[in-house]
């Protein structure tokens, strides 16, 4: 507990006619010994020396900076005591308007503004008072990276990891390294000028790994399980000669892809005759010198296959075939994990760019022989970016003919194959006679078919919600591609996204950096993305734990395991510090040193709620996600989009951390309503902790039920989705809610 707090008011940045000396006096009077220093300073940004002096002279544990938002100048205040901010500029003075909606007159602050500021200062003091400096949950941080998959991406990752000074353990399923790259005769362009196919030099890449004493390779091997946490995982590997167990700090998942099942391409003739093949097989035949065909059609338009798959799905639905359902565990029975097979026809479409580039490369290889005539038939030539240069060069290549075409039929006729082409660029439909048809290969990520990593986690051996990404081990974040739902495991290459060779190499490097960073963070006991550097972690008071398992089940990152009795076993290294666990806990036994149930509850109780609703207005609590809603509120303030003076805003790490007790605290304190402002949820979720806002919305339904039972209108507690760019709409959102509350009248528990 921060026992001695210095409070500073930033004269320059508060304004609004607020009497800061009076606020300071009120703070001194109310908090007494807790706040031995209370100062009004002309400009906070110029007062760092004063504050540092106070910290030393008065042995302050904390300083409370009342002025602009912590988002404005927060980085200026790196001090030796805990720092708290009271946002009196953006979210108080600048966003203030009178209860009737009018702007405040110049001069002295209206009373409602003074009450607002006073509440916020008191809430700030109590927040800091209930906050401790986190100690650290550091672990050794084993400087060894596990790379799963020994193909193009995995080999790159292993070499790069070793070049950073880490030991590497590489697990490869097959009997030799190289993966799919072994079957590629030549690679797509790997470097500037990006105009020519290039040898992959896969043998050299393999040699760089096998010849490196810091890289240990296991062939014919697979993961048995991965247990523990970042910095100190234990990987059990089933390899030739039995099972081995190895300590690793982090994992790069580069397990690649398998080819889409032939059945999906059967509507295009695959399997009906040997003259119809796939790009992957054709590549291998080329490597093995087995290609004799002289007229070859590469078909990129896969509409036939896609429509057939759609039709058969529709027929299945019409015939009432039940969708496969995962086995339900009976009461008291341990759930058995059954991997849902996520392979589907969409993998063909998702592989469009890899196939477009791949077919150019293959066509280029065979067309080197002048006797060979190659046709490429496409719907969209998906050769994005710099690879256009490669495409351009191929267009000029003799012996390669390319056209947009709707391929409507492929059939064996005599000793050749006829490809029916419609809507071509030649101004006519035509049938193309060829010796061989090459169809695209669908890249199905290995993670769509199996739980490759085999996590020994309470939440199961697989990444959660893989169906959202059709089985790819991708993050849902455009800005942060490496963040999987399992901390310390970073996916790269085609298991994450279908990618060309150059992109896979780059991806491998990125994933290695994240792995190294994770090990380093674990060794310092701090969080990784998105709260990187945060030293706090959830602490459990097991005495009061009832083993209800809610925390274990709800953690978006599977950070918690449990023992036979169901007592949670925290793994701070896996934790992202969102607080969803303590939001879940009905016994409130989980806390962070600097963020906990009692702290926020105390802040809520610190607000002065007037008894007379009619005369002095309602009070509404806003719990705002600090990632998106809070900045949006700041920007609304800066843009002078003022909102009702009756609301009190408390930022939370994530709506997932909202515990129902806070709502009860607010209602019993006499608040008339509670707004929960959080990120978008559902398939395109924007929640930084993946599940927080969604979980909160479910908890809110329970809260509504409880309120209903108590005779309180459930509409007094509502959750709203607020994106960070919703700054111009947010004040209307707040005012709308406040208006509805005013119509409802006072909280029946007010004053009780």
């Amino acid at each position, binding site marked *: 507990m921060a026992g001695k707090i210095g409070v500073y008011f930033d004269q320059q*940045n508060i304004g609004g006619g607020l009497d800061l000396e009076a606020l300071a006096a009120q703070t001194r009077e109310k908090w007494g010994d807790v706040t031995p220093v209370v100062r009004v300073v002309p400009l906070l940004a110029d007062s760092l020396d004063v504050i540092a002096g106070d910290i030393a002279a008065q042995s302050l544990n904390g300083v409370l900076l009342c002025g602009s938002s912590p*988002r404005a100048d927060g*980085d200026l205040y790196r001090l030796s005591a805990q720092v708290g901010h009271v946002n009196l500029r953006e979210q108080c003075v600048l966003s203030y308007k009178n209860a009737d909606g009018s702007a405040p007159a110049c001069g002295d602050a209206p009373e409602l503004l003074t009450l607002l500021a006073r509440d916020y200062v008191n809430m700030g003091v109590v927040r800091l008072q209930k906050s401790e400096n986190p100690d650290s949950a550091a672990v050794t941080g084993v400087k060894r990276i596990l790379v799963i998959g020994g193909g193009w991406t995995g080999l790159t990752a292993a070499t790069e990891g070793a070049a950073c000074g880490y030991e590497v353990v590489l697990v490869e399923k097959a009997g030799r390294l190289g993966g799919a790259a072994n079957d590629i005769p030549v690679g797509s362009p790997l470097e500037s000028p990006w105009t020519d196919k290039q040898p992959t030099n896969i043998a050299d890449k393999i040699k760089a790994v096998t010849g490196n004493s810091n890289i240990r390779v296991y062939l014919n091997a697979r993961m048995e399980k991965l247990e523990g946490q970042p910095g100190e995982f234990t990987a059990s590997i089933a390899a030739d000669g039995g099972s081995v167990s190895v300590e690793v700090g982090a994992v790069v998942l580069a397990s690649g892809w398998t080819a889409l099942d032939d059945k999906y391409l059967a509507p295009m003739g695959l399997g009906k005759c040997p003259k119809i093949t796939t790009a992957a097989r054709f590549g291998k035949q080329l490597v093995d010198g087995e290609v004799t065909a002289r007229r070859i059609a590469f078909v990129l338009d896969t509409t036939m296959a896609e429509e057939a798959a759609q039709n058969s799905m529709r027929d299945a639905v019409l015939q009432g075939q039940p969708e496969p359902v995962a086995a339900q565990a009976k009461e008291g029975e341990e759930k058995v994990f059954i991997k849902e097979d996520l392979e589907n026809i969409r993998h063909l479409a998702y592989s469009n760019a890899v196939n477009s580039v791949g077919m150019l490369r293959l066509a280029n290889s065979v067309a080197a022989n002048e006797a060979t005539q190659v046709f490429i038939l496409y719907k969209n030539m*998906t050769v994005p970016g710099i690879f256009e240069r490669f495409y351009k060069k191929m267009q000029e290549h003799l012996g390669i003919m390319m056209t947009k075409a709707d391929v409507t039929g492929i059939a064996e006729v005599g000793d050749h194959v006829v490809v029916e082409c419609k809507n071509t660029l030649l101004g006519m439909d035509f049938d193309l006679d060829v010796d061989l048809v090459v169809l695209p290969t669908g890249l199905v990520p290995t993670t769509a078919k199996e739980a490759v990593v085999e996590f020994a986690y309470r939440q199961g051996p697989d990444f959660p919600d893989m169906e959202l990404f059709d089985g790819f081990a991708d993050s849902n974040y455009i800005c942060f591609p490496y963040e999987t739902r399992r901390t310390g495991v970073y996916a790269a290459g085609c298991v994450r996204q279908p990618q060309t060779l150059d992109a896979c190499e780059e*991806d491998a490097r990125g994933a290695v950096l994240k792995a190294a960073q994770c090990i380093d963070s674990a060794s310092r006991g701090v969080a990784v993305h998105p709260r990187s550097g945060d030293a706090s972690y959830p602490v459990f008071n097991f005495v009061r734990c009832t083993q209800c398992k809610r925390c274990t089940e709800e953690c978006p990152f599977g950070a918690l395991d449990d023992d036979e009795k169901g007592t949670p076993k925290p793994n701070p290294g896996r934790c992202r510090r969102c607080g969803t666990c303590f939001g879940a806990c009905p016994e409130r036994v989980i806390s962070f040193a600097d963020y906990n149930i009692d702290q926020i509850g105390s802040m809520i109780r610190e607000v002065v709620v007037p008894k007379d609703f009619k005369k002095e207005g309602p009070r509404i609590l806003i719990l705002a996600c600090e990632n998106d809603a809070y900045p949006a509120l700041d920007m609304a303030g800066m843009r002078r989009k003022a909102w009702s003076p009756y609301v009190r805003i408390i930022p939370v790490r994530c709506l997932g951390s909202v515990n129902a007790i806070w709502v009860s605290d607010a209602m019993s304190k006499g608040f008339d309503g509670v707004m929960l402002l959080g990120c978008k949820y559902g398939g395109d979720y924007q929640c930084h902790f993946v599940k927080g806002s969604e979980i909160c919305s479910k908890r809110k339904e329970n809260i509504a039920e409880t309120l209903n039972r108590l005779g309180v209108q459930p509409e007094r507690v509502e959750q709203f989705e607020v994106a960070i760019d919703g700054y111009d709409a947010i004040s209307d959102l707040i005012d709308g809610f406040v208006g509805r509350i005013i119509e409802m009248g006072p909280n029946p528990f007010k004053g009780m």
Partner: protein
Amino acid sequence: MSKAILVVGGGFAGLTAAIEAAELGHDVYIVEKSPWLGGRVAQLNKYFPKLCPPSCGLEIQFQRIRKNPRVKFFTMADVVGLAGSKGSYTVRVRLRSRHTAPHAVDFNLLASSLVGEADNEFDFGLSKRGALYKSMPFAFPDRYVLDTPTLSKTDATQAERAKFLDLSEQPREIELDVASIVVATGWKPYDVTRLTNLGAGKVKNCVSNMQMERLASPAGPTGGRIVRPSDGRTPHSVAFVQCAGSRDQNHLNYCSYICCMASLKQCLYIAEQNPDAEITVYYIDLRAPGRYVNVLEKVQALPNVCFVKGKVADVVQAGDDKVTLTVEDAVRGEKLTLHYDLVVLATGMQPSLAGENPPLPLPLDEDGFIAGGEEAGIFAAGCARMPLDVTRTAQSGTAAALKAVQTVKGR
């Protein structure tokens, strides 16, 4: 000797490279030429495919910087000189004058009382800005800029007297010692005035895709309403002209990677605001790589969006502020002449270094992309290396950070 890493460019690639390296324990300097970090993505309204706001990801990046003393950044800064070699570079950086105090002063009142105006480059000329300005609500650093040439005479008097403004602040130069360099100088929209057949930027109601992002942005010139610049009216017929400059050896001899996806995204913007609007997309190929095909199919399923494979030959001004397009339908072989309320040119990305002479020992290819430098301990990231979308840029920035870290670590 310094083991720090210099990152040139504070856009998404540079931010990523810098922060990822710093979070692995390395000291990093970001040198950004504009007054704020965030680069091109700061100008975007939404990202494809999720249609989420870019400022959300930027906010996380800025938080990471605020919390991490290892990241130091300079805005309005240019690298002007480089000496030394791999492992030991001395970089000269010129800092232009911002004329505002180094903390987050709320200049709102003063700024709106000044009368001098200039074209707002952040909105690509769709709006004006004053002399004292902050281009975006989520600006980081949260500081205004005083552009002294834009001050009127009376403004200047007012500014002289204002607290926290320093009109006499002079540019200065600093030196940084670093061991490795990441170049993430990004891209610029291709200059439409060079697209003479597409109206050269002179046709009313023919905007570029980046201008469209500003029109759709809640902080943009119209508060997010997509309207015709000439009269502020909601357009009922809209055409997208793909490959405006890209895939054209007279202009950009490559595909700009993002324009198809950007136009699909913008179709969704328009359809959301005005479901009755008739939209036509003229394209050579619809390039929606990987799982982005889901967006393509979503837009193709919209009732009022149609796609025509064909290159637009001509864009000219028509009466009633309409725009006339001449298009060759590549499949039907027909030549079409059509009129639209609004035309969007999907202009491509050109590397920022094209036509520049950066004081860095970097080989550039004929289009201005960085083509090497690794042996000197200099690593290109993001669109300075090739056209990429944001996810690939993040990948590229992280990868470049690794190479820089390896260079520094070996010493």
